[in-house]
């Protein structure tokens, strides 16, 4: 369902980022429809769990989840990237109900999440903070500044999810900037690491449970995914990182996603 929205949104706009939206669709669906304690009719509810989209280019996915979750009419998805729309090209918290952080400049989500998680601790509130980032995004030094700080501050109410689709903008992550040994890096920074298949709902839900019960340290879920997941000609194809499908491709993609 979210995947179909992603194709429609990017196809209609003629621009946007389908690949990294499709790879994280199962994770975000699990969060919005199973994991998050939130209230679409009161987006500013003080005790809500915070979902922070650090990889702001996956805005089509976030908008699809927010619309299906009841934050605004599904119809409004037709306005993404159009003038006067509440749904900007990258997530913008000042205009879209349910968006927690303005993003689009990569590398900032965990830092922001630490702030929100510290506030929960200071106010003795039970909410949790979830941050979704890309693997290419982990090239940013700030991600590791934040990784160090989250462990130092013992933020066990913070969970990061890395969409490990192994593709960034210019190509494969291991060719552009080697990330491996990726899980070891997080462990060395003091994080609890859970590695899963990011397209298995049961593994995703199980990972969130594990993260929740882990105390004294932040958790990172390294979700192995396929960029462009669900659409054969987009899968594992760096071309579709930031290129929208043309009308022909939209038709083909929607047909495949019907199955």
């Amino acid at each position, binding site marked *: 369902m979210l995947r179909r929205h992603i194709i429609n949104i990017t196809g209609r706009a003629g621009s946007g980022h389908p690949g990294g939206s499709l790879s994280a669709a199962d994770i975000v669906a699990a969060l919005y429809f199973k994991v998050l304690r939130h209230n679409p009719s009161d987006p500013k509810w*003080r005790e809500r769990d915070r979902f922070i989209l650090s990889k702001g280019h996956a805005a089509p996915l976030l908008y699809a989840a927010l619309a299906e979750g009841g934050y605004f009419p599904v119809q409004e998805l037709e306005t993404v990237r159009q003038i006067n729309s509440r749904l900007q090209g990258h997530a913008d918290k000042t205009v879209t109900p349910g968006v927690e952080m303005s993003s689009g400049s990569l590398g900032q989500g965990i830092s922001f999440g630490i*702030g*929100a998680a510290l506030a929960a601790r200071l106010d003795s509130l039970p909410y949790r903070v979830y941050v979704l980032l890309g693997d290419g995004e982990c090239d940013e030094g700030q991600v590791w500044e934040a990784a160090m*700080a989250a462990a130092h501050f013992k933020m066990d109410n913070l969970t990061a999810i890395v969409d490990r689709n192994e593709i960034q903008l210019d190509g494969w992550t291991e060719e552009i900037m080697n990330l491996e040994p990726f899980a070891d890096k997080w462990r060395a920074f003091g994080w609890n690491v859970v590695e899963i298949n990011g397209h298995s709902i049961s593994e995703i839900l199980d990972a969130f449970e594990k993260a929740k019960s882990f105390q004294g340290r932040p958790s990172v879920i390294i979700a192995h995914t396929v960029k462009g997941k669900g659409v054969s000609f987009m899968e594992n194809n760096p071309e579709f990182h930031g290129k929208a499908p043309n009308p022909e491709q939209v038709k083909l993609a929607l047909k495949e996603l019907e199955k």
Partner: protein
Amino acid sequence: MATELSTREAYGQTLQKLGKERKDIIVLDADLSKSTMTNLFAKAFPDRFFDCGIAEQNMMDIAAGLASCGKTVFASTFAVFAGGRCFDQVRMCIAQPQHNVKIVASHGGVSVGQDGMSHQSIEDLALMTIFPGMTVIVPADALEAAQAVETAAATPGPFYIRMGRPKVPQVCPDDYRFALGKAATMRPGKDVTIIAMGIMVASAIKAAQKLAGEGIDCRVLNMATLKPIDREAIILAAQETRGIVSAEEHLKHGGLGSAIAEILVEAHPARMVSIGLHDRFAESGNPDELLKKYGLASEDIEGAVRKIMERRGQS
């Protein structure tokens, strides 16, 4: 007259005072708390102080996250790092979302002294005033610094306040009340108006006193709020005096002089001379030596005023 105090010391003391009254105040620093003086707050309220280590970009976004959950956050480091290194973080997570984060940066300008160019922030005001919705303040002395911090704490939205390293003389009267967005008249006058901020206010007053002996009557305005700037006071000065001299411890570009010039050109063209760094970086040295070498001394302000008086004679 109170004893000399730096604006950063006034910041530390005021934060400590505010921390008692306001439990929503959280303070962040990036391993410079002994220099920015947030260490006073840290000692008094260790639960509400977070040292983020030498990771300024991370600190700014943590500040934003805290503010997004209702906290009033003060984030401090040196002005060079707050302005330059964190530009994108401030843009994305503080300025545009209008988060309640007060960036209070110390060691502004060349009066940092011997640490030299790497530590002398001469571009921060251009970088921070450029953001829509950012309030920018440069206090002239400790008294004004304390009041500016109190005002920031009481006013929602993002602030950038630039403090200085050296101890500075008190220039504001004991009964001074800082008014956000309003220039303070430090000295009335009808010939030329000197508009200054930060440590340059003291130099402007000194220059005005000297010039009074030559029969030149200078008005001195303290433009502590650089943004939103007091447009009316500037236009009035242009109408009522023969010209304007701006004085700032910053590049001429993108700071006080530029802001005044923009207003004058549109509203009331007037003679103007700006005192500031002219398209160059500075170097190590004592503050007074540096101010002199780089054209920021009270004598330079005097010269600029005379230039305006002379030009008048020619026309």
